[in-house]
């Protein structure tokens, strides 16, 4: 009885921490990126809690709805946030199992994220603006080309979850895979995890509209993808859009963070601290790319995505090799 109660309390605690991380922390990491970029450019930059202040300011303001828009435009910001948070509940963060995990949740994860993207695209088409239509067209095209990479990464992760024959029968889920990863997993499956991490990093940059695929700070509408699609949102709607984007970035980063440094500590709090450090380090990586690279020409993006796809495919093949699927062939 006592043991069960303790287990329940612990689970509850873990869930609360994950919800806290997922809901409260995301804007901070955006703030970190902005700050780091400013420092790298030799400016002082805003404090890292600036995004919170921005969100608070936006949510106090009124809204302007275009006469062209209808319900789609009104619901889209809500859908963006809801889908990001739902996806975040499927990814295990900070050393815990995810609140939602079931066999097959990898696919649901990918499609829940796609839901938010679809909502933004539709909302931007609803405004009837040519610029927003342009952003929507680009987003839809590049996202479609990135999907195969995403799924191959998921296949590779799923295989990893089944790699150890002693744990055979675990569910095909993100938690099932990531919860059983240890640092030693890198010693066994490092050759597969290396390209996987690269591919996932490229995907993070694309899905979250970062340099080199998109520039979050550009001022020219013709060069935007994500920013141009939320041009017409204002007030709380804009706050929701920005917040949803921040949550999505955190969700992706925590997935990658868990893969590159899968160590569990004895104490939960150590895990939480490591988690924050991991995400911080990944934010530094994202910033490094933004500082070191310019935005790519649009027609070069498919080539890069194809490269990421090859890396993901390589990771699947190497994962199968490391699992010994090809051993025992007549040599």
């Amino acid at each position: 009885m006592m043991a069960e109660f303790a287990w329940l309390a612990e689970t509850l605690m873990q869930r609360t921490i994950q919800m806290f991380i997922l809901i409260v922390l995301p804007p901070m990491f955006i703030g970190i990126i902005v700050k780091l970029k400013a420092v790298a450019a030799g400016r002082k930059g805003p404090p890292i809690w600036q995004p919170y202040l921005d969100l608070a300011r936006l949510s106090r303001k009124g809204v302007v709805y275009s006469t062209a828009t209808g319900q789609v435009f009104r619901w889209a910001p809500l859908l963006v946030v809801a889908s990001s948070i739902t996806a975040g509940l499927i990814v295990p963060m900070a050393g815990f199992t995810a609140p939602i995990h079931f066999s097959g949740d990898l696919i649901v994860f990918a499609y829940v994220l796609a839901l938010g993207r679809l909502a933004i695209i539709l909302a931007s088409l609803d405004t009837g603006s040519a610029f927003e239509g342009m952003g929507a067209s680009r987003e839809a095209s590049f996202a479609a080309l990135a999907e195969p990479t995403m799924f191959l990464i998921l296949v590779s992760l799923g295989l990893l979850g089944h790699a150890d024959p002693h744990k055979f029968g675990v569910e095909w889920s993100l938690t099932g895979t990531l919860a059983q990863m240890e640092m030693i997993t890198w010693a066994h499956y490092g050759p597969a995890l290396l390209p996987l991490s690269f591919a996932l990093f490229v995907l993070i940059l694309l899905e979250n509209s970062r340099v080199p695929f998109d520039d979050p700070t550009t001022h020219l509408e013709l060069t935007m993808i994500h920013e141009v699609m939320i041009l017409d949102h204002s007030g709380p709607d804009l706050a929701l859009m920005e917040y949803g984007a921040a949550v999505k970035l955190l969700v992706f980063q925590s997935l990658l963070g868990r893969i590159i440094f899968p160590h569990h500590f004895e104490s939960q709090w150590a895990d939480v601290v490591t988690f924050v450090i991991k995400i911080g380090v990944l934010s530094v990586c994202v910033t490094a790319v933004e500082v070191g690279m310019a935005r790519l020409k649009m027609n070069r993006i498919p080539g890069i995505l194809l490269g990421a796809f090859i890396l993901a495919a390589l990771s699947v093949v190497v994962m199968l090799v490391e699992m010994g699927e090809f051993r025992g062939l007549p040599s």
Partner: protein
Amino acid sequence: MNSMDEVLLHEFIDILLVAVLILDLLIVATRKLKSSVWMNASQAALLGLMPLLLTGGELEFHVVLMSVAILVVRGLVIPFVLLRSVRSAPVSVELRSLVDQATAVSLAAVLFGLSFALGINLPLPAAIPHFSDLLVPTALTTIMIGLLLLVIRTQALMQVIGYLTIENGIFLIGLALVRETPVVVELGILLDVFVGVFVMGIVLFHISQAFEHLDTTELSSLRD
């Protein structure tokens, strides 16, 4: 040597091979002349570590000698010579290519798939000790990518890079096939490559002096 070390060694070999593959991909995708030279050099340097690893961590003098030689010659001297030879020529830093980047990468994707499909199932003599299932596919991929570079790039320097990439692949397949290659032979090959590249560097230098460009499509009229 206990089993954990063996696992780690094995994984280290595999990681090296995957890195070689990633470099293969990058060398096709890149659009800068200079970075493709250095990518090729780092690929060769990674391969230079392979003989050390394949002996299982026991440091024998001739193996160490060979690794160091490869690192120095392929990793430092050759790229330096190549870049030096084109520095004075008015070569654009952008690569010139018959196909655009997306097509080049998708051709690379096809070659990757082909090499893995063939390489994993390639029957090899049973006498060979089994280092890694990735070795032969990686070697095949590298050779194919080298050939691809030879076909699609039009600058003379990139032809040299293509040739060097093929050489990397051949070196790998040599490692897979012949465990105890006499070190003298290896060093001889290295010397050949070095001399070859040296000669090519000189030739490039002269071509660039004479024609003020290094585009092989335009050199075709020199035949006969």
